């Protein structure tokens, strides 16, 4: 009888214990990775060319997809906002709504999610393949530091590229929203920006920028970390990549939820 009650409880604690241990293990390994990357940067072991190459892959090559995502986000916000505002509020509030939604939330978050798919998954799969084909071991055996060669350039490139991409996404999103407001409800450009300016705080830009900086750091760090922990063959790479994507999206959503209580008071 006692067993019947105790067993599930013990099982539950065991599960929590395992999850806790795994979390601590991941956190420790992530910390070490970040620390080693900082050391690699400070000791000038990171090649500038590698950083540029990664910035090209993450930034320039992401422009089309970010363009599409941001335009759609702007258009949808504008349409839905217009629909909700019909009778009660002054029409220029639509400008406020679109600009604030894009700058505070949609620009950084959607760009980050897109980059998880485009860059995060790619990094994990790439490094995972290098692990299972012993290329990481080969780097080490030749006295090279995989963190300096593979991890640090991706992390630096992420931190630099993400805010630029988010800035781009903001501009596109706002512009698309404005065009849509004009098309949909005949709201002129001047009225749209009048509304935007009326409730504008420069703090908002800083807020969006901070988010993008954090996301730009989180994506390469987690994807590199997961890639380097890959075990097994092709199957292991696939599994690890899926897990990395889940891990990145969850982390980004949680961080996104932490921002308002921390920075919007």
């Amino acid at each position, binding site marked *: 009888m006692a067993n019947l009650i105790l067993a599930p409880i013990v099982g539950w604690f065991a599960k929590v214990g395992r999850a806790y241990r795994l979390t601590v293990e991941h956190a420790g390994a992530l910390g070490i990775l970040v620390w080693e990357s900082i050391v690699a940067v400070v000791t000038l072991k990171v090649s500038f060319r590698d950083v540029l190459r990664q910035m090209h892959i993450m930034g320039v090559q992401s422009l089309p997809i970010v363009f599409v995502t941001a335009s759609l986000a702007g258009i949808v916000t504008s349409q839905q906002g217009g629909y909700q505002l019909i009778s009660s509020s002054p029409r220029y509030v639509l400008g406020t709504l679109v600009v604030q939604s894009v700058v505070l939330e949609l620009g950084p978050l959607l760009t980050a999610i897109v980059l998880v798919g485009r860059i995060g998954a790619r990094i994990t799969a790439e490094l995972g393949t290098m692990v299972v*084909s*012993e*290329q990481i*071991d*080969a780097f*080490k*055996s*030749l*006295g*090279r530091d995989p963190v300096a060669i593979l991890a640090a350039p991706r992390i630096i490139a992420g931190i630099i590229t993400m805010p630029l991409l988010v800035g781009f996404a903001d501009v596109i999103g706002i512009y698309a929203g404005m065009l849509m407001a004009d098309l949909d409800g005949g709201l002129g450009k001047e009225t749209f920006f009048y509304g935007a300016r009326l409730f504008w705080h420069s703090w908002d830009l800083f807020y969006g920028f901070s988010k993008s900086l954090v996301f730009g750091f989180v994506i390469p760090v987690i994807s590199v970390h997961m890639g380097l922990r890959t075990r097994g063959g092709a199957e292991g790479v696939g599994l690890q990549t899926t897990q990395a994507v889940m891990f990145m999206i969850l982390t980004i959503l949680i961080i996104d939820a932490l921002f308002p209580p921390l920075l919007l008071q």
Partner: protein
Amino acid sequence: MISYQNIFKAFDIPVLTGVDLTVETGEMFALFGPSGTGKSVLLKTTLSLIVPDQGDVEVDGLSVYRGPASNLDTIRRKIGYVFQHAALFDSLNVYENVSMGLPEEELAVLRTAELSRRVWDALEIVNLEPREILSKLPSELSGGMKKRVGIARAIVGRPEILLWDEPTTGLDPINTAAVERLIQRLSKDLEVTSLLVTHDVEGGLHICDRVAMLHSGTLRFCGTPQEFKDSPDPVVQAFVHRDAAIAALDMAVV
């Protein structure tokens, strides 16, 4: 000199359970053993590519696991490692792959002409035609060619010690002989220490000064090739004789 001291390593199951082995400077040493007994794992502990659960490795008196971190850098510089599956960097071409075999400081000061000569020589030593393959990517090479590029990368930096993980598996007889001769020449002319993991028992017995056999996690045998052949141990005998048996089988088929 490499000395493995009481190496233990378990993954899901125990793989190495107390391995002690010493390879003297300038020696050619062959390590045999059934597939999956941990030969590759043992080689990898030399460079801390796999960290043993217990035990230590010393290379020329420097401890890998009990000394300062700088020991590992020094040791990695001394040792060339030939990976079982070549482990070429697949985003780099053959030229770049082989140049990675040189230490960073050397690459920084080496002139382009000198560097190409070193890469060129290393490829010719392993019987590859540099002109044809220098600009190829690993994905464009055959398995045997990859393997030999991997050997070129390991020797281009003129290491004092070479760890060979099945360098001749998958090579045709001519290239097998070429690699065996290379191991012998490096050892005789340049006093390079070689630890060779191989399934080619006959070849290993032929070229090596001493041989050992890894079986169920420990060293089952360690001695000269002659002692190996004469060993009364049934496991060793099975290994020697299995080879003879296969030769006989081949003869019967022909």
